[in-house]
Each structure stands twice: as C-alpha cells, then as structure tokens.
C-alpha cells in the first residue's frame, strides 16, 4: 500500500465524523457563553441617547459657531434689528427655530445664528487655514482673539471668514465671546428688549428630535425589560 493510499484510507474513513459529547459538557460551554450580548441589548439605548445628545450638542456648537464675517450683511441685520425677522431664515432649513434665548447681540464677534451659506463658506474657508502655525498657541486666548479680530478686520481679509486652527480653541473662544458679550451687555445702555433667535440647522434639529424619540423608547424598553429577561 503506497503512502498516498494509506493517507486516503484514513482520510476517507476518519476526516469527517461525529462523536457525541458527554451531556455534562454543555454545562461547561454554557458557563463560558458571552454574557455581554445580553447586557448590550439592555444598555444600548442609554448609550445611544447619550451619544445623540452629545452629538447634537457638538453639532449645534459647530454649526452655529462659524465666524460672523462669513455672512456680514446678515450679521448686521441680526445686530440691528430686533426681533430678528424672517429674512434671516436659513435657506435650507424650513424648521422652526428650536431655541430662543437672551444672549445679547451687541458684539460683532458673537457666534450667532448662521445661515446655510455661512456653513458652506465656513467649510470652504477651513481648508486654507488647516496648516496655520502652532506658535501662537502659547499666547493667552483673549489676546489671540484680539489679534485675530484685528487681522480679520483688515480689508484684505474682510471677505474671508476667519477660522481657528483648532476646534477646542474655537470652542473656548466662543465661550469667551459669550462671557465677554454678557458683561458688555450688562454695562451697556441697551434697549428694553433684545430678542435673539438661534436658528438650529435642520440636521441638528432632526438629531434633537431623534434623541427625544430615543428617550421615549428608552422608557418603554426599560418597562418591558423584566419580561424579556425572564423569557
């Protein structure tokens, strides 16, 4: 019998086959079964809800924090007219304004509601600024903001929206702006009534609504949880 034949003899007879495990073996397999899948089913909704809230928050900040220079005429309208009228409605958004608060509109640096053109301009304008030097990261934030404002005010930059090189810098700057504007607002002689409408982009608004639905579903899934588990 040649080696090949020998191999074939054994392969044909024994390669495939079945051997019944002892009944006790299942218990040991069951011990090692992944528990995470059942847990994941329970915990999925809270995480999703939290994630959407976070996403909506970041999205709102990102969308609304484009520079005022992006749409100067509209910003002018926003700061002079009160309450803001419908000519400021974003072209793409047919949703009603989601929030309305008392943020003052006096400062030109304020990250105000923006239009869809503003967003587009912002996205485009981001590209050439991607590689700005890191050097002035060490300059205190307020001074940097002033310097940036001065640069932005120069005529040759007047049309280009100013974009910070880092997102966190942008976030910090907008917080700083709000704070500065609030103090300015307190000291200034202001008209009796200032209304600012914040127009949330349709995408973000949709997100918020989804989150609300998720939260409702969450309550429901929690209430049906015990029955599922006992299944």
């Amino acid at each position, binding site marked *: *019998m040649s080696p090949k034949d020998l191999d074939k003899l054994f392969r044909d007879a024994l390669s495939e086959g079945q051997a019944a495990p002892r009944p006790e073996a299942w218990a040991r*397999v069951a011990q090692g079964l992944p528990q995470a899948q059942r847990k994941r089913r329970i915990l999925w909704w809270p995480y999703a809800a939290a994630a959407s809230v976070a996403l909506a928050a970041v999205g709102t900040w990102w969308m609304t924090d484009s520079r005022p220079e992006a749409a100067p005429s509209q910003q002018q309208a926003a700061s002079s007219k009160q309450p803001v009228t419908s000519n400021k409605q974003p072209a793409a958004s047919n949703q009603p304004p989601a929030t309305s608060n008392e943020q003052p509109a006096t400062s030109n640096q304020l990250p105000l509601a923006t239009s869809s053109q503003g967003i587009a301009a912002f996205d485009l304008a981001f590209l050439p600024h991607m590689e700005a030097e890191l050097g002035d990261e060490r300059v205190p934030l307020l001074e940097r903001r002033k310097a940036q404002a001065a640069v932005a005010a120069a005529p040759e930059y007047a049309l280009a929206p100013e974009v910070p090189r880092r997102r966190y810098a942008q976030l910090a700057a907008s917080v700083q702006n709000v704070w500065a504007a609030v103090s300015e607002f307190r000291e200034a002689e202001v008209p009796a009534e200032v209304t600012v409408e914040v127009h949330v982009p349709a995408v973000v608004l949709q997100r918020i609504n989804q989150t609300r639905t998720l939260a409702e579903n969450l309550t429901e899934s929690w209430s049906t949880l015990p029955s599922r588990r006992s299944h």
Partner: protein
Amino acid sequence: MEAWYAHIHNALNGRLDAQRALYEALAPRVLHTCKRYFVDEADAEDAMIRTMTQMFHQLATVREPKALPAWLRRTAVNECLMELRRRKAEWVELTDFPETGASATDALHDREALWALLRQLPEGYRTVFNLYALEGYSHAEIAEQLGISEATSKSQLSRARQWLQRRLVNFSLQ
C-alpha cells in the same frame, strides 16, 4: 442549508435555547476532530469546549453559516495543537515501535478499526499524520504550527506511515 443555520441569529441575541441547539448540532463534529489528536477523552472534551466557547464569542463575525464548520475545524485543530505544544509533546525518534497490542480486525475498512489504530499511534506521529493526511496541511505549515523543523515533520510522517503499514500489512486490504 442545514437546520442549525436558523439558530445563529437567535444565538447571537443571547437566546440560550438557540445556543444550545447550535452546540448540539456542531459539537459532535468538533469533538470528533479533537479526539483524533488526544487519546484521553477528557483532553478532547476540553479542546472541544474551548473551541465551542470561542465560536460563541466570535459568532458575530461569521458572515456565512456555510463557512462555520470549516472555521470550527481549523479552530479545533489549533486548540489541540496549542495544548500539545503546551505539554511539549516529545518528537522522539522512536526506533522500535511500542507494541500496544494493536489488533486491527479483519474488517479493516471498518472505520472503528482505523480509528483504533490512529489512536494507538504515538502522540508525535499521530499529530503529524493527522495534520498532513487528514487535515491536508503542508510540511511547512506543520513545522510552523508545531515549532519543529520541516525535516522532523517529514520523518515523523514517514514513521507514522510505517507504523500504520506494519499493522495493516498483516491483513488483506481490499
């Protein structure tokens, strides 16, 4: 389309009955593979349990149910080899074969007889013979898997064949 395909979805959702059904359908094949590598039933069972546990943990990554048996077989072989490596199986060059009282019956085509013969092979021979003849590994793969040289793999295989031949030759085959 085999009956157990339907259980995969529910098993993934953590349904114990579906996991049980999947186990019932697939564990015998795995155990058979493991038993080819270990004489001791408990060793084979351990390897089978590790393989099945691994399968349940990786079930989500399985795209095609059709591919699952092949995956299981590969995993089972790897589990067995890992255990054999851990025990540092001796790749001894036996000159005289141990007389284990192998008594291949007259009905040599009988699976049982071949099965008994395979299980009587010395461990090193059996492993290499299993991998080469039954699993279809190359000598290079075997050498890599077992941490031995290709030459050792070849010599172990030829000795395994000799060992088997010697016990088969006394009986008229086919």
